[in-house]
């Protein structure tokens, strides 16, 4: 009836890797946020897969909480981005070295 969970987990590993690669490589702050969302979705897919494999609803509840935390993170992060853009009109993370010691 269902597919082997290994494939879901392998897919989520690859998705997480792509998201982490985007966070490391890209310089645009907004795109970095989107890559963080990719990583969170990979974790969500893992949770749902384990919920189905272990026959436990707790994994899906955790996905629910991850969704809420992701929404809060995006709201605060984009607020920070807007506050930074008010000072300097550039999108790259390399320019944000104000707190450099």
């Amino acid at each position: 009836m269902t597919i082997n969970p290994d494939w879901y987990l392998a897919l989520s590993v690859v998705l997480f890797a792509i998201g982490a690669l985007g966070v490391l490589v890209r310089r645009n702050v907004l795109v970095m946020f989107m890559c963080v969302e990719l990583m969170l979705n990979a974790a969500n897919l893992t949770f749902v897969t384990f919920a189905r494999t272990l026959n436990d609803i707790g994994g899906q509840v955790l996905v629910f909480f991850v969704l809420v935390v992701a929404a809060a993170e995006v709201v605060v992060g984009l607020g920070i981005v807007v506050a930074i853009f008010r000072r300097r009109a550039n999108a790259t993370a390399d320019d944000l070295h104000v707190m450099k010691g």
Partner: protein
Amino acid sequence: MVGAVAAVITAATTAHASWVDVGTFAVAAAIVLAGAIGVVVARNPVHSALMLVMTLFGIAVLFVLQRASFLAAVQVIVYAGAIVVLFLFVIMFLGVDRTEDIAAEPLRGQRPLAIGLIALGTTGLLLLGQVSHWTTGAPHVSGLDTGQPNVNLLGRSVYTTYLFPFEATAALLIIAVVGAVVLARRPPVTANPVDEEEDADEPAGDPDTDAILAAGPAPADGSATPEAAPDSGSPEPVTAEPVTAEPVTAQAGGTANAGDPPFPAVTTNGAESVAVPGSGGQEARP
């Protein structure tokens, strides 16, 4: 070729997997991976956001495939409907929807290092999944297979077992809303004295008018008092300067005009003494 595909499919499926499930999983996985790669390599942030929507829809399909129908709906509504729209709103609001030069590499060697590290970790995880089991726990007895709808199970679990995290989630959302309002609010005009631009913009007229009002007793020299006023900062030293500077200038005038007839010298000093406090303030400044 067909035999290899069939072998892969039979390897990918458990005993009762149907072709529909396998095909759906394959299409959804392709959509997810293509969208994820598109997010990373797209030059325009708007294209990245649209690719993110594609990935989220693929994830929602995979949720449906694993009997998490409520989460699939929430995924589409919250992620694709709210979060990505928020991304797009910020992109359009800030006007950063221009293409970025991806080929530029500010940190030398950072990009190959990141790619190598990620590839190493991914390969390690996949090999670990091949040589061992992903899960070793025993399956739950009363979970998803009870025949109840997904929403009922989720709601009951949220409001009984996970009640405290649910309440903490409410607090988290409130804090996030307040934080976003505080962060995105335009700062008040006088609360930020460090910012040079706003300092140069709006209170520029105020110190001059304050200085002119404060230097009212010596209005004869209009050029000297506004010059001395911004350096003194507050208006009180400006009013205090003529009192202290007047005897000094009177002594200086008396010593300089020692050989001259006293009465005209005194009268000229008295006439200049109105304007001298400005010069006295300039001498006292450094």
